[in-house]
């Protein structure tokens, strides 16, 4: 693992990354790359992002000691990075504030976005409302049905929600449609991608804006327990919260970085979202990465109880970090995530998102592996309010069941 700085060429992370898009979009991506590079060099832009994150999003988010989980698991001391406390209820807002400010700086009047569960759509609609930009969100028709609450939130925030009827009518089709719309309106439209995926420079932009999570973990750990954590664990769908929490520690070889993918109904079932674990190299949505596909190169629909992990691809940088061994990858099934949801709710008083529940589901073992005296940080990437209908539909277990 000599190549710890994972970007090996512009937009390339080892074998992964790149810009596999129709020629019509290439000039727009080149323009975005340049505008982003200029913004990064401008201290005023960074100050503006930081100020909005502080005043509007409520950053920094706390690093909370999880005393009862620590006790129950009987291993490392457990701390929670509370992205669930960020405005709109998840880490997605970190990126949309940054990208919408970038869109405004580029003089774009109109913003489009894709969304699966609706969290990224809500976060984009929120940023657009704050800065007075027009916002159109593309969402699979099936997800529109399943996520009525977030559809309402987006509309209330002034966004237009387009139901996408093609393909599997879920996130990957929403992303296809957003790209098609962008091709047709590329001159005046900014496309806010929410995952650390897509064509270059998006994986880099999303990583940079989400890295505020990891940078805060760094500072807060030093204050809270006087050293860096021994391990950090985060869930991985497309990978935006994971790359944000983990990337600032890539060079710190003593910090174990662990990602948890959606095991769905089990890795043998064919119904999961484990693209790092079981995916093969391919091109989806503009970048070369690990994808779930059949032997003919057709993308397979993913499955997860959590809509945010229900995606057959993963960001190229995470694919590289996983292949080189820097990030350890594990999986948690739907049932394990559900059990973790109740455990965290009842032992810490926090309803985690089903996505984050996947990280919690593997954290107990990791805490024991690390052992006492060590420190484990779990990225609690979002709150579970959006998932209550899904979870309640499965029946609520009696409270005593959770006493360990």
């Amino acid at each position, binding site marked *: 693992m000599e190549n710890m700085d994972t970007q090996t060429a512009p937009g390339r992370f080892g074998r992964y990354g790149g810009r596999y898009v129709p*020629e019509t979009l290439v000039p727009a991506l080149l323009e975005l790359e340049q505008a982003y590079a200029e913004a990064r060099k401008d201290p005023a832009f960074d100050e503006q992002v930081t100020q909005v994150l502080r005043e509007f999003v409520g950053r920094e988010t706390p690093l909370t000691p999880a005393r009862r989980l620590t006790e129950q698991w009987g291993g490392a001391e457990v701390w929670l990075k509370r992205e669930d406390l960020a405005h709109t209820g998840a880490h997605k807002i970190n990126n949309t504030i940054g990208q919408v400010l970038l869109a405004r700086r580029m003089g774009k009047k109109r913003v489009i976005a894709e969304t699966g569960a609706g969290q990224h759509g809500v976060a984009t609609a929120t940023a657009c409302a704050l800065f007075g930009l027009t916002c159109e969100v593309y969402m699979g028709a099936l997800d529109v049905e399943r996520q009525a609450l977030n559809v309402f939130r987006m509309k209330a925030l002034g966004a237009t929600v387009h139901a996408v009827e093609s393909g599997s009518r879920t996130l990957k089709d929403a992303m296809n449609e957003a790209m098609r719309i962008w091709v047709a309106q590329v001159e005046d439209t900014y496309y806010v991608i929410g995952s650390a995926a897509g064509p270059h420079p998006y994986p880099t932009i999303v990583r940079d804006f989400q890295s505020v999570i990891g940078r805060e973990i760094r500072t807060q750990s030093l204050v809270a327990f006087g050293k860096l954590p021994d391990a950090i664990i985060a869930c991985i769908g497309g990978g935006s919260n994971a790359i944000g929490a983990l990337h600032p520690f890539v060079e710190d070889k003593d910090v174990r970085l662990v990602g948890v993918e959606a095991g769905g109904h089990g890795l043998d079932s064919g119904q999961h979202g484990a693209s790092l674990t079981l995916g093969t190299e391919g091109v989806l949505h503009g970048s070369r990465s690990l994808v779930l*596909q059949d032997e003919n190169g057709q993308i397979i629909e993913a499955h997860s109880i959590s809509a945010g992990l229900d995606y057959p691809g993963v960001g190229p940088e995470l694919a590289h970090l996983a292949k080189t061994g820097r990030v350890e990858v594990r999986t948690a099934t739907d049932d394990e995530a559900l059990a973790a949801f109740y455990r965290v709710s009842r032992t810490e008083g926090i309803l985690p998102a089903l996505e984050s529940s996947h990280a919690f589901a593997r954290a107990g073992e990791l805490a024991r592996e690390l052992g006492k005296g060590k420190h484990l940080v779990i990225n609690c990437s979002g709150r579970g309010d959006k998932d209550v209908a899904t979870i309640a539909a499965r029946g609520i277990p009696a409270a005593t069941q959770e006493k360990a």
Partner: protein
Amino acid sequence: MSGEIAEAFARAKARGEGALVAYAMAGDPDLTRSVDVFAACVEGGADILEIGVAFSDPIADGPVIQAASERALKAGATLKRVLDEVVPAVRARCPQTPLVVMTYVNVVMALGEERYAKLARERGVSGTILPDLPPEESEGIRAAFDKEGLDLIPLCAPTTSPARAESIAKDARGFVYCVSVAGVTGMRSELPANLSERLEMVRRTSPVPVAAGFGISNAEQARVVGAHADGVVVGSAIVRAAQADGPAAARQVCAEIKRGLKR
């Protein structure tokens, strides 16, 4: 270079016509019957056939070809099967017509770039169009194709700058596919006003023929565009006609377009 594509454009030109590149989806409605659609296009006057190979996530395609992709995937149209079953049958029925495969890069990667190039060439394919493979990403694949003499046909877009268009044309094999509108494939009632200028600009620098496509569906559009290009690509109009009324309707669309291309 395969050579066959240049010859097809030259033959059309010698007859005083623009070339018609006709696209249909292999495997729509099934593998066997799609062969009839391709053969009907040639009967209608198509000079080059574009064999569409379906991909699950066709980001460059509009609703007509998206729906055709879904039908073809249901019918079992994989790249391997298209090369084994559709291409040889079309070759047998239309031995003079060059064949070009149009699909997405992931489909070719899954078969293996080198393996695909070799197999495609053996089966009689002259070129390949990959709409999600821009020049920056195409070097390796182009080298693999060149080795077998399979043309990697590049695309130019309305957003492509003149300097970039020139460099695309310089590296072109087969022909340059000029995308007429910023958008996905599909019929348009109006084409952009500056299209003829853009076509002439690419034509001046291109060592290979230039064909315009996306949005062209009738003889009048073909006449206007054909005056500034060596040919036109027609896809959605053919796919829609074939799906609604069978091969004879596809033949009719081609014949109508071809009327517009007579000079």
